[in-house]
């Protein structure tokens, strides 16, 4: 009787998980598998040679341009993620600790930019950094520069600044949700045990918050590393990143096998970085309300 009842139940369970499995297979596994397969084929003038080759990867590794762009992307992504973290984590800490019942509204204000199109957020920085932009106007007014400078826009720095701005809400969200869950009496307990404000932060707050900060950092890193929109809008030639060449390979060059190899190399580099970062993720504790 019970065995008879169990069979349909498990069948039902399979049925319920089917959409999720289909989603993963159709939208994640299949496209990536196709990409991997393409990267081992060769581009011919009138089509694609379907025999196995490592030539695309050789081309990627031997290209000085690709290596330079890869290193530049690493530097910009690492720099922007670091800056966003340095700004957003203290911000989240201050909001959680000192905004009391207004902390939700403060958090909302910081997250609101995420509701606006990514393109718009990046584009608006042209208005700030451009030659007729707000920054130039301001510096001229206070007399630091005599004539508008074109140095701010179209550089790796511009990409870094814009991506820092774009990344702040992500690190803020990750930090805020965790900091908000630290019971206030832990701060009191640390003070009670003789820890000053700074030592409370170093010995209690930071060790507990670190994993979420690392997750925020990773989010921003991934977001920046493969981006080609921001470099195109504010990077100029010197701000070109690896995503730009991937786009060109698939687009203008129409060389899908090379583009695939380039894309997979980019993902591989990014996975290595994430793997190293995940060493900082280890968490031994359980906060109130969590199950062990």
């Amino acid at each position: 009787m019970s065995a008879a009842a169990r069979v349909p139940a498990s069948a039902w369970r399979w049925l319920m998980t089917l959409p999720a499995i289909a989603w993963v297979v159709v939208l994640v596994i299949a496209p990536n598998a196709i990409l991997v397969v393409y990267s081992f084929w060769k581009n011919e003038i009138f089509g694609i040679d379907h025999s196995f080759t490592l030539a695309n990867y050789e081309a990627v590794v031997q290209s000085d341009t690709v290596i330079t762009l890869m290193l530049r992307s690493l530097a910009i992504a690492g720099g922007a993620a670091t800056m966003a973290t340095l700004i957003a984590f203290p911000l989240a800490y201050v909001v959680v600790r000192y905004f009391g019942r207004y902390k939700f509204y403060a958090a909302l204000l910081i997250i609101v930019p995420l509701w606006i199109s990514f393109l718009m957020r990046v584009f608006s920085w042209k208005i700030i950094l451009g030659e007729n932009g707000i920054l130039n106007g301001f510096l001229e007014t206070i007399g630091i520069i005599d004539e508008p400078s074109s140095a701010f826009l179209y550089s790796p720095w511009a990409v870094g600044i814009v991506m820092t701005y774009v990344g702040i809400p992500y690190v803020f969200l990750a930090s805020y949700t965790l900091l908000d869950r630290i019971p206030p009496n832990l701060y009191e307990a640390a003070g009670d045990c003789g820890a000053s404000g700074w030592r409370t932060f170093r010995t209690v707050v930071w060790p507990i918050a670190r994993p979420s900060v690392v997750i925020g950092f990773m989010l921003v890193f991934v977001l920046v590393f493969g981006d080609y929109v921001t470099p195109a809008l504010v990077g100029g030639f010197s701000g070109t990143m690896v995503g730009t060449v991937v786009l060109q390979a698939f687009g203008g060059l129409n060389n899908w096998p090379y583009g695939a190899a380039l894309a997979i190399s980019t993902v591989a580099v990014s996975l290595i970085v994430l793997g190293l970062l995940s060493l900082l993720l280890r968490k031994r504790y359980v906060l109130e309300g969590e199950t062990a």
Partner: protein
Amino acid sequence: MTESETVTAARDDLGAAAPAAAPQRLRDPAGTIAHEPLRLGSVSKQYPGTQGPAVADVDLYIEPGEFFSLLGPSGSGKTTTLRMIAGFERPTQGRIWLGETEITGQPPHRRPIHTVFQNYALFPHMNVRQNVGYPLRMAGVAKAEIRARVEEFLARVAVSEFSERMPHQLSGGQRQRVALARALVAKPQLVLLDEPLGALDLKLRQEMQVVLQHLQREVGITFVYVTHDQGEALAMSDHIAIMAEGRVHQIGTPEDVYSRPQTTFVARFVGSTNLLECERDGSGAVCAGELPLRVVDAPEGGGFHLSVRPEVLRLGADASACDNRVEGLVEEAIYQGSDVQLRIRAAGHLIKARGPVGVYGPGETVTIGWNAADAVSIRDDAVPAVANGGAEAA
């Protein structure tokens, strides 16, 4: 009297009384612990945006090495008082001294006072050993000594075998013990305990009461214990301050507050009692409603309440020799195992009494009696502003 005069006067009392009483309580072999009395002088706390103060004009004197309880219902200001002693809240008015040092404005981390929090507040990312060692680490104690002291206190609270576990791997009772060890390990002047047994089940609570009392005596640190459980306070304390609505109603030994309540609130809150509203008629005789009474210490003028504990009431034939006697009708008899709790309607009053099992049932008539000396008169205008300024230490 101005505030500073009050304090000076109290310190003088203390100078006379404390040295005689304190040394007997110090049981730590090193003899370095708990030599500073804690004093609160007219301390008030008003939270912004609230009506009326959370704590109003509280004067306390807590002897070095004693077990002192703040007893009161929720909202009575006992936890706020504790938080001001710990330094988490700043008094709106008044001052706090530890010995000769004023600590009113000192941040918590500079006070030689440690707290056992209601929910333990163990650091979730540190194991038991690291949690207990934390205050010593903050105090800059050498590593070898931290290790030894932590071992000592883990053994004292019987959690040595769990020293490598994380807080989430411990039961409530074990967390409680770790929190206690953490509060004691740095040998502070004062340990504050905020309803530490509230989250434990009855059996564990009783066990921890004994642990707490023994530990307090062994290490000789002053304990200030906040609770709403009058049984707990009576069982463990050297002195109890009973609070209601931000004010201290009475300070005294457990026996004082139980047998000589100074306000009707204290009489009602500590144990169970019958409060009879009394008046004097023209000839000076006392009566509670229709019932004429003999009262030994009836205050002059004005109304007062007479507190008669259920256990001093005699029933039936036993009542015949009592100063006060009244006929009553048993309305309710609740079986309690060792005895029966009775509710008796007599001369318009509903009287709580205890009787032997199986003798009095509902609907029966019974004579209740008590001796005048066993009841306590409480003035209705008793002002709940008590300073213990060392008076009962003498």
